[in-house]
C-alpha cells in the first residue's frame, strides 16, 4: 500500500472556519506535503456534554481521557513552561490523592513542528479522573493560592487560546 500524500491542514482549516474564526486565522506551519485531494467544507454542532454539578464542564473529562491544547504566544513560551511546571509540581505535592493522581497522569507535550503564530502544547490526561476539574487556573488557585494572581497574569499573557478534546479509549 503506497500512501498518497494529502494535506489535512486545509481540510481542517475549513472545518474550523465554519465554527471558529479565531482558529481559522491561524496559518498552519509549512508542511512538505502536496495536496492531492480537494478539501471539503463541513460544519459541526455538538450536543451538550454531561454536566457534573458545580464543575465547569469544559475542563472535565467524564469519558476518562482527554486533551487540552494550549496555543501559546511564542514570546511567552518561557513563562508558560514555568507556570505549567510549577502547577504540576504543586499538584504532585498536594494534600489530596486526587490532585496527586491528576499530576501523575498529566502528560505534557510540545509540538516539534516549526511554530506558526503560536507554539502548541498538548496536555493529555490519560487516564483522566472523571470527576476532576482540569482547569489550570482553578488548580493554581487551589495549590498555589499565594501566587495565583501573579501566575494568572503570566498565563493570561502567554496563552492565546485553549481547546478541549474529550477522548474515549478503545480497548
Amino acid at each position: 500500500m503506497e500512501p498518497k500524500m494529502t494535506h489535512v491542514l486545509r481540510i481542517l482549516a475549513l472545518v474550523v472556519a465554519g465554527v471558529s474564526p479565531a482558529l481559522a486565522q491561524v496559518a498552519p506551519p509549512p508542511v512538505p506535503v502536496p495536496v492531492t485531494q480537494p478539501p471539503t467544507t463541513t460544519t459541526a454542532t455538538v450536543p451538550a456534554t454531561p454536566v457534573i454539578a458545580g464543575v465547569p464542564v469544559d475542563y472535565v473529562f467524564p469519558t476518562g481521557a482527554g486533551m487540552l491544547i494550549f496555543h501559546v504566544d511564542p514570546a511567552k513560551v518561557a513563562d508558560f513552561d514555568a507556570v505549567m511546571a510549577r502547577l504540576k509540581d504543586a499538584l504532585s505535592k498536594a494534600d489530596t490523592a486526587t490532585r496527586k493522581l491528576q499530576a501523575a497522569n498529566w502528560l505534557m507535550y510540545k509540538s516539534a513542528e516549526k511554530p506558526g503564530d503560536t507554539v502548541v502544547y498538548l496536555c493529555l490526561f490519560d487516564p483522566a479522573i472523571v470527576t476532576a476539574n482540569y482547569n489550570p487556573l482553578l488548580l493554581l488557585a487551589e495549590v498555589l493560592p499565594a501566587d495565583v494572581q501573579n501566575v494568572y497574569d503570566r498565563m493570561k499573557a502567554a496563552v492565546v487560546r485553549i481547546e478541549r478534546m474529550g477522548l474515549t479509549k478503545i480497548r
Partner: protein
Amino acid sequence: MRLFGVFPVMGRRTVVALGVTGMLMMSSVAQAQEPPPAQPAAAPVPADPFKFDGSSPVMLMITVKGGQETVFEEAYVAIRTALNASDKPELQAQAKSMQLMRLTAELPAGQNRPYVVFLDPPVANQSYEFTQLLYYSGAWKADDVEIRKQIDAIFEKLKASVAEQGIWPLARK
C-alpha cells in the same frame, strides 16, 4: 471572578473542530486506497513516514469516515491483537504503544471522526503504517492462503473506513 472568567475554553462547537486543531499542525498522509503491491519494483523505495526512530513521541491522527467507526475499530483492534499475540518482542511492544482514542463529541451524521494514537515513544524502526503492519510485520503468516484472506478482510475494513491519517511529531515536556 476575574481570575477564571477571562480565560475561557473555546465553545463546544469548537471542540469538534478541534479534533482538528491538533491536525492543523500536522503533516498528513492520506489513507492509501490501493491494495499492497505484489512485488516491489526496482525503483527506490520512499521513506516510510510511519516509521520513527523512537527518540521522541508522536501523535497519529486518524480520520475515520462518518458511520464507519465500528468497522475501523474492529480492524484496529484486530491488528493490535495480532501484534500482541506475536512471539516477537518488538511487535508486542508496538501493540502496547498503539492505544487508540476516539474523539468523544457527537458529530453530525456522516461527518468524519478523528481518532488519536499517542506513541510515547514509538517503537524504533517499526512501521505503524497499516499495510506494513498487516502484510509485512510478521504478525501474520501472510503467505498462507487462508490467513491471507483474514488479513485482506482487515485491509478492506481499513480501506472502507479510513479517510486520512496525519503524523504530529512532539517533544515531551
